[in-house]
């Protein structure tokens, strides 16, 4: 399992389009990916679950990536969070 922490730099947080894009990206991988903020943890294949975590700008979130292709999934997600600014 790979775990990684990110600070959300987009002021709006993971909202709307970035959230939809993140879920779409996650679906491309066989690995099971979870996102956690504080007490809330949700599987990343569901937009409803992701939105209900409510990750806002400045929040720290943790990703848990487990299973097949986990390192390539981690790279893709790393790219995603680095690009997520505004």
């Amino acid at each position: 399992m790979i775990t990684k922490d990110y600070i959300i730099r987009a002021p709006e947080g993971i909202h709307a389009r970035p959230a939809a894009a993140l879920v779409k990206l996650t679906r491309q991988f066989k690995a099971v990916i979870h996102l956690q903020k504080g007490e809330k943890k949700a599987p990343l294949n569901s937009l409803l679950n992701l939105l209900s975590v409510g990750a806002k700008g400045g929040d720290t979130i943790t990703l848990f990536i487990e299973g097949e292709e986990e390192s390539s999934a981690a790279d893709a997600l790393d790219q995603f969070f680095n690009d997520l600014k505004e």
Partner: protein
Amino acid sequence: MTMMNIANNLQGMGVSPGIAIGRACVIRQAQAGITGETLADEAAVAGEIAHFHDAVGRSIRELRVLMAGAETAVADILEVQVELLQDPMWEGEVLSKIEADKKNAGDAVLEVTRALMNTFGSMEDEYLRARAADIEDIGKRVMRHLRNENGGMAGGGAMPVGGGGRGSEGDGANAVDDSDTILVATDLSPSDLIALDISRVVGFATRAGGKTSHASIVARLRGIAAVAGCGEGLDAIADGDMMVLDGTTGILLVNPAPEVVEQYVEKRKEQLATTRFLQSLKSKEAITTDGTAVHLSANIGSIEDMEQALEYGAQGVGLLRTELLFMQSNSLPTEEEQFIFYKNILVRAAGRPVTIRTLDIGGDKALPYLPLPKEDNPFLGYRAIRISLDRKDLFLVQLKAILRASVFGECRILLPMIGSVQELRQAKTLMAEAKEELTRQQLPYDADIRTGIMIEVPSAAIMADQLAKEADFFSIGTNDLCQYTLAVDRMNEKIKALYNPFHPAVLRLIRSVIEQGFLHHIPVEMCGELAGDPEATLLLLGMGLRDFSMNAPSIPVVKNIILQTNMTVARAVCTKEMNNIV
């Protein structure tokens, strides 16, 4: 058109600025109901599941068609809906209702969407709350396909609203155009907004909704005035009613008197002219004709103010008042609460400098949970930095919160009411203590954060040469500086006329502070009311001030003056004003 035009005034929330005058077009939405029919056998279950998948598939294809023709912001909304339609959580719940509870697909979809709408509708975050409308929208779309209705919303033929095509060109600012339409609805879903031909729509009035509902977002995007949350009063409006809507104040007038309509036509004309002018200045830099660049920032107290500041083209925040945060709480805001507030502002400022002023209470501003003894002379009493240096516990919490937030942007600290070098030194000692604590807790902060002082007490203005050696910057607060220098309480009706920030005594202090800053190589800024006073712009420019911070709406006004002047003129104005005899 109805024969009886009942006049009525409603108050909602202004969600998209502007004045709209037009005829009402009421949109009524049919409500689907639960049928309660259950499925007889496994074959029926399999049939309903296939039926459901088919309806979802068709809904997605339909959304993709709509997306292709939509503008980016609307396409973004639809993209989210496509994603929701494919959501395993929603799909799983619908399927379980069909398989386990033997419900028909329509009932299952209705129940699941209603439950999700309730969950999202009661969330704290405004954005997430507004997602209830997306869920409702996809529910309706899938329901329509389950019933095999192709409706008028399948892309293509958009439904026109209101009168015929656009009449004479121009924005119709000068008269009431009878084909101008104001949409009246409970709420407007993205599908409604795309399906309706809104080229004749000048305003939205919705019963529900808020700033982040779709109708509001689309309204702001297209520059359509909108009022949300109008409540039940909206139900009495009939098609064709004359309506006036003010998207700034949230006022909604139904069938107003012709004179009132005339007044609003005038108001609309003025607003349009002003808006155009302001927009034309927004991205312009404030530079005089002879090349002197001036930095224009905003004074803010909340995240909403921050949004407004950016809209008016502020280059930063010259003064973030922290009092509002304290005054809106029922108890002392914790370090965490303060940290989140400061951080959100810094994140939103996106690299623009933000100057956070530590708590400035006392005087005329008190906190319900921090009772201060009644004083004979509150403005000469226990207030601002004097409280902070006395209640070190409160001050340390605030300093730590600011320091923690400082890694999220370009952050500076500003100390109010400093009257001596000693006070500045004491504050800096506490700052070092706050930093040490954070280091111990292994929490990140900007170790090089700059600490400046307000120059608002005459003693500080007079001793600016000494203070400049230990402060990282000055920010002149003209309101207090003026009242302390002239010994005039500006709240006192009888002597209000004596309150004059253009008094040469005040001006001399200001000029001397600017000079001392220059001599000691520290920035001097002004965040008092004088900075936003268009009558003072040339004078201050002539004195050498280059950093002005004011309420956001004043920025374009001051910028306009700077753009049209040069330093020769500014210096001449300054010389003249400094030598006035009062």
